[in-house]
C-alpha cells in the first residue's frame, strides 16, 4: 500500500532518528507503556546518539522501552513526572550520572502545550508550598497562591499515533493518545510513528486530532513490524 501513497514525510525509522543531534532535548510520548513510539525508541537506542535530555511522563521499565536509553548511557538528564516504575532512574540520579527534574504530571502536560502555542510561562495552583515547587516564583491572584511555570520546549518530539494520512494528519487509539498530541506541538522536529498510513481525505476532518501542520516526519510502523 505504501508505494501507492504520496507521502513526502515518510522515512525509515533509522533515517528519522538520525535527524536527532547529540545533546538534544527530546520529548517522547506515552504513559505506562501505552502510546510510546516503540520502533523509534528502539532505533534511537541502536543509533547510540547520546547526551540526551529525555522529556516524558515516565521511563518505561529497566532495560525495556525508554528504560533502555538509560541502561545504554545515552541519557544526560530527565524532565518528567514519574520514575517509580523504573528503579534504575533513582540509582543513576543518586550516583550523579543524570539530572532529574520532577514536574507534576498536569503541570508537565500544560508546560509542553505552552511551548507549542507560544506561551512562555503560566501560573498554576499545583504544588504550591511543596518540595517540587521549591525555588519557583509564586504569586497571588484573587487571594490564592500560584506557582509560575515556564514552558518546556524541545528540539525533537517522538510520538506515537494510530493512523496518519499522506499529509501527516494524525488520529490516536484509546488511552495511547495521552501526551502525544500535546508533544506534537512543542518541538522543532516532530517524528510520528504510526501503525498505518492512509490516503489523503480518508480521515474525517472533524476527527483529526493532530493537524499535519505539526508533523514533520512519519515512520510507518505498519510496514516495518
Amino acid at each position, binding site marked *: 500500500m505504501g508505494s501507492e501513497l504520496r507521502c513526502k514525510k515518510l522515512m525509515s525509522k533509522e533515517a528519522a532518528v538520525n535527524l536527532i543531534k547529540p545533546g538534544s532535548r527530546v520529548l517522547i510520548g506515552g504513559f*505506562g507503556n501505552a502510546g510510546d513510539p516503540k520502533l523509534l525508541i528502539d532505533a534511537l537506542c541502536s543509533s547510540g546518539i547520546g547526551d540526551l535530555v529525555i522529556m516524558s511522563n515516565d521511563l518505561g521499565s529497566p532495560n525495556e522501552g525508554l528504560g533502555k536509553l538509560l541502561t545504554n548511557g545515552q541519557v544526560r538528564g530527565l524532565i518528567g513526572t514519574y520514575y517509580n516504575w523504573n528503579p534504575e532512574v533513582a540509582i543513576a540520579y543518586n550516583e550523579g550520572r543524570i539530572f532529574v527534574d520532577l514536574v507534576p504530571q498536569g503541570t508537565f502536560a500544560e508546560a509542553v502545550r505552552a511551548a507549542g502555542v507560544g506561551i512562555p510561562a503560566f501560573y498554576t495552583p499545583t504544588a504550591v508550598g*511543596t518540595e517540587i515547587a521549591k525555588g519557583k516564583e509564586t504569586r497571588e491572584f484573587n487571594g490564592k497562591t500560584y506557582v509560575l511555570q515556564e514552558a518546556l520546549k524541545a528540539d525533537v518530539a517522538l510520538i506515537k499515533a494510530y493512523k496518519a494520512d499522506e499529509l501527516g494528519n494524525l488520529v490516536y487509539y484509546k488511552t495511547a*493518545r495521552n501526551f502525544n498530541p500535546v508533544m506534537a506541538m512543542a518541538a522543532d522536529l516532530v517524528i510520528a510513528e504510526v501503525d498505518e498510513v492512509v490516503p489523503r481525505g480518508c480521515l474525517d476532518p472533524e476527527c483529526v486530532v493532530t493537524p499535519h501542520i505539526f508533523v514533520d516526519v512519519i515512520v510507518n510502523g505498519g510496514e516495518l513490524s
Partner: protein
Amino acid sequence: MIVLPEDQAKQRIAWRIAQEFNRTECPLFINLGVGIPTMVADYINNDQVFIQAENGMLGLGPAAEEGKKDPMLINAGRIPITETPGCSFFDSCTSFGMIRGGHVDATVIGAFEVDQEGNVANWIIPNGKQLGVGGAMDLVAGAKKVYIAMTHTTKKGAPKIIPSCTLPVTGYREVDVIVTEFALFRFLEGRMFLEEIAPEVSLEELREMTTAQFIVAGDLKTYPVP
C-alpha cells in the same frame, strides 16, 4: 489494639467511600488513585457516577477480563480496563485541564500521612529509592473534594492521622474526607470532625491510634459496615 485483616479493611474502606458517591442524583465525576481507591469502583452502583482517568479517559468501565485485555486501554495505574457507552478519550493536557479546572468532583487517593490541618503526604518516602510525583499534586489541588482512603495505622501499628505531616506534603489544607477501616473524618472550615466510628472500636481506642486532634461530631454515627 484491634486489627482487621488487610483485605477486609481495604474492602470496608472502598465500600464506605462508594456510598458517598452512590447517593448522588446528578452526574458525578470521580478520579480514583492506585490501590484502595481503585477498589471503590467495584462498589459503585449508580449510573450517574462517571470515572475519569488522568491518562486521558472519561467513563471507565471495570477492569478487563483475562483474554480481553488491551494494553492500549489502561487506567492511570496501568491496569487494563474497559469502556462504557458514552466514554471519551482525550490528551493529557485536556485531562489535567478537567482536574485543575475544578470539573472533577472528587478524587480518591491513598496516603502515607494526613494531619489535622488537612495536609496530606502521599507522593514520596525520601528513602532514595523513589523519584516520582505523577498526578498526585494536580489531583489534590484541582479536584473539588479530596477523599483519603487508607488503613488507620501502618502495618506496625503507627498512627497515620497525625498532628503534622512528617513526610513531604502533596497538598496543603486540601483534604475533605478521611475514610479508614475504623472511622470517617470530615474537614469543615479547617477543622477535623469524627463523624463515624466503627462498631468494634471505642472512642478511646480510636484516640490511641489517632494522634491528630479531632472534634467528635455532635451526631456521631456508627460507621456502616456492608
